[in-house]
């Protein structure tokens, strides 16, 4: 469905942040894109949705295909119309608009009023809490409700592919679980393909079909989610376990530090 081929992104015409990223998101799947801070995950998503320009970023090489159509160098509004919707990191709801106005703004690219009303109810069905607070200004919603609103707003354009950027950021573990469950349901029930960027690797790999690991603007490893979950390196560096259930002691650290295998 989505195919990135050797994408290179440069900021301010000088700083190369993506060194040829290639990845593929098959239809109907959830694909996780994992990596540390500054690895280039968010930049990858922004390259797909076409919003690098306000940050003075630019795609200088490679191509992005969506269902056989090239979408690099298109306007963000066109990309939304083609069926890609991004939920940005940090929720980014429109604070001075009510929850419902946020959702209506999310349907901006569509024109069928009846369909939009139906989808509004669909979103309220997935997020009943938003229905209760539909007339509250979004800025006054709790963090969890704002994240739900951001996802709901992304759904209102009826996307075939959703790009979720760190939906777990700053939320309590219970809420994170709730959000991920809903993402999984959206994938299964609404047939929304998902590209999920996360730092919470354990959570992301638990619902994803496939995972990519990014480091310093490159994809360094990829594979089916269950393979990644059992990979020793991933366990050590992203899941925070060395041997399952065993906490590290200083003695181990002192005499042997694991080296990332993909660096050699």
């Amino acid at each position, binding site marked *: 469905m989505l195919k990135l081929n050797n994408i290179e992104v440069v900021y301010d015409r000088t700083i190369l942040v993506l060194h040829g990223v290639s990845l593929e998101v098959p239809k109907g799947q959830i694909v996780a894109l994992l990596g540390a801070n500054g690895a280039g995950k968010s930049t990858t998503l922004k390259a797909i949705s076409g919003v690098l320009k306000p940050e003075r970023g630019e795609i200088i090489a490679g191509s992005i295909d969506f269902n056989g159509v090239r979408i690099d160098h298109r306007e963000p*509004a066109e990309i*939304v119309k083609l069926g890609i919707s991004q939920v940005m990191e940090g929720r980014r709801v429109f*604070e*001075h*608009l009510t929850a419902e*106005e946020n959702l209506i*703004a999310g349907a901006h690219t569509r024109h069928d009023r009846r369909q939009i009303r139906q989808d509004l109810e669909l979103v309220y069905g997935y997020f009943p809490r938003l229905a209760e607070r539909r007339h509250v*200004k979004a800025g006054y919603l709790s963090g969890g409700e704002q994240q739900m609103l951001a996802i709901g707003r992304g759904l209102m*354009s009826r996307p075939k592919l959703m790009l979720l950027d760190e939906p777990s950021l700053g939320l309590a573990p219970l809420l994170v679980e709730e959000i991920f469950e809903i993402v999984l349901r959206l994938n299964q029930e609404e047939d929304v393909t998902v590209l999920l960027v996360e730092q919470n690797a354990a959570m992301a790999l638990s619902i994803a079909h496939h995972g990519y690991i990014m480091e310093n603007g490159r994809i360094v490893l990829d594979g089916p989610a269950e393979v990644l979950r059992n990979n020793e390196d991933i366990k050590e560096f992203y899941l925070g376990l060395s041997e399952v259930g065993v906490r590290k002691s200083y003695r181990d650290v002192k005499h042997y530090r694991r080296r990332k295998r993909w660096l050699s």
Partner: protein
Amino acid sequence: MEFFFDLVTNGLLVGLTYALVALGFVLIYKATSVINFAQGDLVMFAGYAAAVMLGMRGMPVWLMALVLAVGMVVLGFVIERGILRPLVGQPVIAVIMVTIGLSFVLQGLVAILWGASTRDLPLPVRMEPYILGPVFLSPINLVAAVIAIVFLIAFGLFFTRSRLGVAMRAVADDQQAAMVIGIKVPRVFALSWAIAGLAAAAGGVIWGNMLGVDTFLALVGLKVFPVVILGGLDSIAGAIIGGLILGAVESLAAGYLDPYVGGGTKDFIPYVLMILVLFVRPYGFFGHETIERV
């Protein structure tokens, strides 16, 4: 006391017009973060165009109003497209300077096109005041207030009821987030300039009628600055309340102070008020409503 009521009422009526023009200014600031120093000159340009059209034989007022409204909307679009679009993402100072430049270009343009002498802008409104108990209402003030109220209500409905209005407010809140849901941000920028042009058209006709049309009309338009400082640069409700307060204060100053100093207080009292407000509330009384969750 009767004198006081009379001044306040007429002041409030004039204040509505300030509110209307300030709304155009606030809109541009909210949506595009541009401080538009040329707002007063847009008002002046509209006043000139109206006076010229009415000077033509056989031009009825309604036709003038229609042509002017359409023309000013187009002018707003053209300014955004031609002058501000290329500067998106450039430093604030560059953008401010460009609006100052635009202000003088507009002044020069009207002088070249239509000459610098003062023109009349006659409207078919009667001169004798309506007398309402102790209050003398000047008909032109009433007409101005009605026009302003109609515009303000129309804008209010537009922003809350129409999807495009909601999209404009969304862009004002978070441009990038608006982009990723498919709102065409440049289109919203152009629209906010077009609406500012429309607001300026109303202001130009009303003040042009009261004061006569020449390049000094731009100074009246500049009263949006005290209005928006009072109300807050980014608050639509603030623009309305700021306009009303300013209208009243100005009228009171003219009534009570002018006899002692020989006139002219009307022209600077708003700015005194602006300076005082800046001491106390640098963001205005309503502006910068940052929502913080605790």
